[in-house]
């Protein structure tokens, strides 16, 4: 595995990934506290409101930085150099996170949750999975939200980080300034025999 940071990572653009990870850390911390005390607590007590809000705002930061991370990696074509599984894994994380966020809305146990649940149930029925996922079933949605989806996300984050460590950060795209530095001539002009690159 690479053990030094390449010079091109000296940019704030490369911080969006770790900011997403830091947000996820706070989502887990606040979520575990919410799980311990339950809806009666997070809707009623002042401390419950605080941790409910912490959980909510951590999610906002999580998606904010994840999408910025996605923009950055897309614009630098970060799937190059055998990094396609890092890219695909990132997409899987994004889609799973949307499901986790959605089941989170359903787990709020308030008017928002009922509204989202009744609207979403029609969508589930229309794509034929309404028999498996009942969005109005708080127990099912809560279970998916606090156990299955976080475990999947945690596992995929582990794989994602391992792949980033294994392959290193993608090198910047080559700068096409019309001059081929390696062969010291304008880009695209023929290289004579015996003078070519090694």
């Amino acid at each position: 595995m690479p053990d030094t940071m390449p010079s091109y990572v000296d940019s704030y653009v490369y911080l969006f990934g770790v900011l997403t990870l830091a947000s996820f850390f706070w989502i887990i911390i606040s979520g575990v506290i919410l799980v311990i005390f339950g809806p009666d607590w997070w809707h009623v007590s002042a401390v419950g409101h605080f941790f409910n809000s912490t959980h909510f705002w951590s999610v906002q930061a999580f998606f904010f930085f994840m999408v910025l991370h996605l923009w950055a990696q897309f614009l630098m074509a970060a799937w190059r150099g055998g990094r396609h599984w890092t890219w695909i894994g990132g997409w899987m994380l994004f889609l799973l996170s949307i499901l986790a966020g959605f089941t989170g809305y359903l787990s709020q146990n308030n008017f928002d949750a009922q509204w989202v649940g009744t609207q979403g149930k029609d969508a589930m029925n229309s794509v034929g999975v309404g028999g498996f996922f009942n969005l109005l079933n708080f127990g099912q949605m809560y279970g998916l939200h606090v156990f299955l989806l976080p475990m999947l996300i945690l596992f995929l984050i582990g794989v994602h980080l391992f792949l980033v460590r294994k392959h290193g950060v993608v090198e910047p795209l080559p700068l096409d300034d019309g001059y081929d530095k390696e062969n010291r001539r304008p880009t695209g002009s023929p290289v004579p025999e015996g003078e070519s690159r090694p």
Partner: protein
Amino acid sequence: MNGPGLQPPINAGPAWQYSFFNLSVPDLIVVGLMIVVFVLAIAIPFPGGDNDSTH
């Protein structure tokens, strides 16, 4: 009809609407903020980094 004290439980407030696009004001603020943060992250030099642009 509803009395003045009775409001729908969900009211997202004003929204920008064009064709099927519908973005609430908070949505627009977040998207705008993301673009600003992204541009700043590229534009602002990283402290301690080698910002020598000659190589």
